[in-house]
């Protein structure tokens, strides 16, 4: 993308004031975004993001600069301006970049640019029709389609020179059910690090019908009661609970400065015995996978928690310095506009020994959250919250009436200890995660789990 001698000159310039590490991240991304409302393609957007980010590290500190102008004169100017933020003298340094070839684990069959926009629209229309025809309660359907082809080059003063190409696609369905003045939204958004072949492998209409089913069920549901009681959280996107309640607090971004509740706790018991969890950026073609992270380190499978014991954090180079630990291949960023930091990839709780039916049968009274919405957390306190998209009351070991509007809140450190049953039906779901280095694709996942007690917020009043 940029010639080697130029990269070397820019890195050297970046180190002119005593920086001990410099890095260049070049990104050229072509993306398409299509939006359909009520079966009509309302907006089609496509285009090219292009820019260069230059990062200089000195000890625990960093300087980051980015620009769209990749001319040699400008890059040298940007490197100099960035270097000027530090005070010091250049060390005796030679930069000799060696190109590294990576083995691509995420093979693509149909690159997005090779597929006509009409075919993409036809896919969306199938989803629209499937959702709309599901139930007479469905009053509106919105379908969005995204694909992107991101090429990156990473070069650093340790001599690394590596390129990667990441192709992703996602189709999201919002089905809106109406009854009088009430409106409820059902959502499903499957995605993968794949080309258009993804839609040959899944049936988008199944997902659309499921989004419609959720909306139509919830429009006819009563309000959720509130209080503290057992909650069963279903598999797949239910894993957002681990992502929020625990995952963010295991990112070096908050651990390194000891701002996380889990800082300095490696080897300690932080969860109940039935909880084991991993972050795995290597899963072929998964939504949150990459061959290398955005610092050029190969991604890997990191066991975070094993039988309740904290085994590893997710670490990037800079925070790793403060922690005295090596990168775990978790450094990520939305684009060249962000300095990278430690983030999750595909993060999930591993399967346990129960079945979903056993868990429900063992629950006298509680809530079954079949689909979760998004949530958030404050890593310093571990306090999290998230929304439940579809839920049912559980009475006497059986699934009872549907309820809507539930919110789950708690502290990550407590909830991990309160997971008392884990099923065998692991599945992953796709999401976008917003944090320090921007919005990035993540898989969340888990089997069906039961939390023995959690605070449920709802509008109906205290549970009886």
């Amino acid at each position, binding site marked *: 993308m940029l010639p080697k001698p130029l990269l070397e000159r820019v890195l050297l310039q970046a180190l002119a004031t005593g920086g001990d590490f410099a890095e260049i991240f070049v990104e050229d991304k072509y993306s398409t975004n299509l939006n359909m409302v009520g079966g009509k393609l309302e907006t089609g957007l*496509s285009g090219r993001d292009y820019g260069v980010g230059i990062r200089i590290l000195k000890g625990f500190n960093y*300087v980051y600069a980015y620009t769209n102008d990749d001319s040699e004169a400008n890059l040298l100017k940007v490197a100099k301006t960035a270097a000027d933020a530090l005070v010091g003298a250049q060390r005796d340094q030679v930069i000799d970049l060696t190109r590294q070839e990576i083995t691509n684990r995420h093979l693509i069959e149909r690159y997005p640019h090779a597929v006509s926009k009409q075919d993409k629209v036809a896919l969306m229309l199938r989803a629209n029709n499937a959702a709309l025809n599901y139930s007479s309660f469905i009053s*509106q359907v919105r379908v969005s389609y995204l694909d992107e082809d991101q090429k990156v080059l990473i070069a650093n003063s340790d001599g690394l020179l590596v390129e990667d190409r990441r192709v992703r696609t996602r189709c999201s369905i919002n089905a809106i059910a109406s009854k009088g003045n009430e409106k409820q939204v059902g959502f499903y958004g499957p995605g993968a690090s794949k080309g258009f072949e993804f839609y040959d492998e899944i049936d988008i209409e199944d997902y659309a019908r499921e989004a419609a089913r959720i909306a139509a069920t919830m429009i006819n549901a009563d309000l959720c009661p509130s*209080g503290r009681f057992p909650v069963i959280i279903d598999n797949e996107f239910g894993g957002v609970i681990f992502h929020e309640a625990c995952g963010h607090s295991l990112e070096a971004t908050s651990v390194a400065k000891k701002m996380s509740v889990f800082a300095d706790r490696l080897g300690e018991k932080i969860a109940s015995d039935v909880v084991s969890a991993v972050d795995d950026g290597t899963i072929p073609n998964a939504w949150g996978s990459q061959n290398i992270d955005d610092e050029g380190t190969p991604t890997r499978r990191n066991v975070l928690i094993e039988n309740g014991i904290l085994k590893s954090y997710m670490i990037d180079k800079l925070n790793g310095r403060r922690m005295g630990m090596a990168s775990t291949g978790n450094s990520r960023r939305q684009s060249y506009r962000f300095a990278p930091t430690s983030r999750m990839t595909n993060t999930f709780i591993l399967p346990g020994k129960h079945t979903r039916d056993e868990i429900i049968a063992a629950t006298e009274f509680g809530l079954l959250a079949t689909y979760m919405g998004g949530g*958030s957390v404050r890593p310093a306190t571990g306090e*999290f*919250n998230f*929304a439940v998209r579809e839920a049912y009351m559980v009475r006497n070991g059986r699934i009872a009436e549907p309820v809507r509007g539930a919110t789950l809140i708690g502290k990550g450190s407590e909830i991990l200890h309160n997971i008392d049953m884990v099923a065998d039906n692991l599945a992953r779901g796709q999401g976008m995660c917003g944090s320090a280095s921007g919005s990035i694709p993540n898989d969340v996942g888990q089997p069906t789990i039961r939390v023995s007690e959690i605070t449920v917020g709802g509008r109906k009043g205290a549970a009886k």
Partner: protein
Amino acid sequence: MKLELFAEKLFAAGKESGFTDMEVFFSGGSSFRAGVFKGEIDNYTLAESSGLSFRGIYNGKMGYAFTEKLDEESIDMLINDAQQNAIINDSEDVEEIFAGSAEYAEVDAYSQELANATTEQKLALVHAIEKAAYALDDRIATVQAFFGGGASERRIINNKGLNLAFQGNTAMLGVSVIARQGQETKTAYGREVARDLAEFDVDKIAKEAVDEAVSLFGADTIVSKDYPIILRNDVAAQLLAVFAPAFSAENVQKGLSLLRGKIGEQIYDAKITIVDDPHMPGKPGSCPFDAEGVATYKKNVVEDGVLKTYLHNLKTARQDGVESTGNASKRSYKSSIGISPSNFYIQPGEVNYDEMIKGTKEGLIIISLQGTHSGANPVSGDFSLAAYGYLVQDGAIVGPVHQITVAGNYYQMMREVLQIGNDLYFGGGSYGAPSLKIARLAVAGK
């Protein structure tokens, strides 16, 4: 390539390819951010960046494309993509390229004082606020302070003769603190925006954050039931932002707003007036023209509880047979045209925040709501959100409360407003509100 030249070449190429009306929307600028941790500047970011979005009418349909590279290759890509995107567009709405309004207001968004400020002065502020926060209370374990700011430019050039430019700059100073006492950890933050570095009150921002964090020690949950609620001004503004999309004519026309057919009707308590003001000096939502180049103006969207108007762009205005309200927007330079408020606020009332507390026999002050992106339904108005704050009994705060959720419906809540504070607050954003006292919301605790 310079913007004017690029636009000229682009329009010529577009014309050859069959486009009739064409426009470029350019957004560029520079930004600076520095953060301090334990006395050292540990993060420092500089940027010069820009992006350009092209849209044009091809066979009567609008097509969009964007780029961050202004080179010859990009011209071909923009024309080609916009053409493709126009072909697949089957919206029946008519989008137009606008020739211009009769006149545009002068809006003051660029501060020369701020432009003249040096990096040293900015870094001195970050160091000062970190120091101030640590000094205020021994229980402050970690402080992260930052300064952020930048200048931005927006340009709209089209082949119907429009050529608009607007420049603004801004600066923000903020601090977030972590306080520890025994096993308890509490966080809070403070921040301010200013148009001149001299306006930053370092001690005040630090004290607000520190006072709030240490005030939360000993927090407990409370019994689940309905409580009268005081929404602190920042929280009232946060909720206003979540439910503001209901005022967008686009959402109304698409059946995604409960305000459909409610113009002229009482939708909120008669004490509530909501203003959209794109001409406030130095506010982030200020601009003399909107994303379609239409002149902006100040208006009451809700007046004494009555809905006066939706927010329109050219497309929705045409459909409703009204004039655009100058609220066309783009989420980023690359987005298609949507609708959003400019600076949007609930008009302040007379009541002092302390008096509001004094007049409360039993109630809850909410000072933080979390998870609004997922726990609130902007269409139905329903919300159920994690919260914390203080319990009030007999007119005085008796202690902090946490691990609760508050749930309700925004429309119902806004019909049950008992008092409106005199403390309008924007907090650096484009949504503002005074503190509000509400008859009741459902609280879930223990």
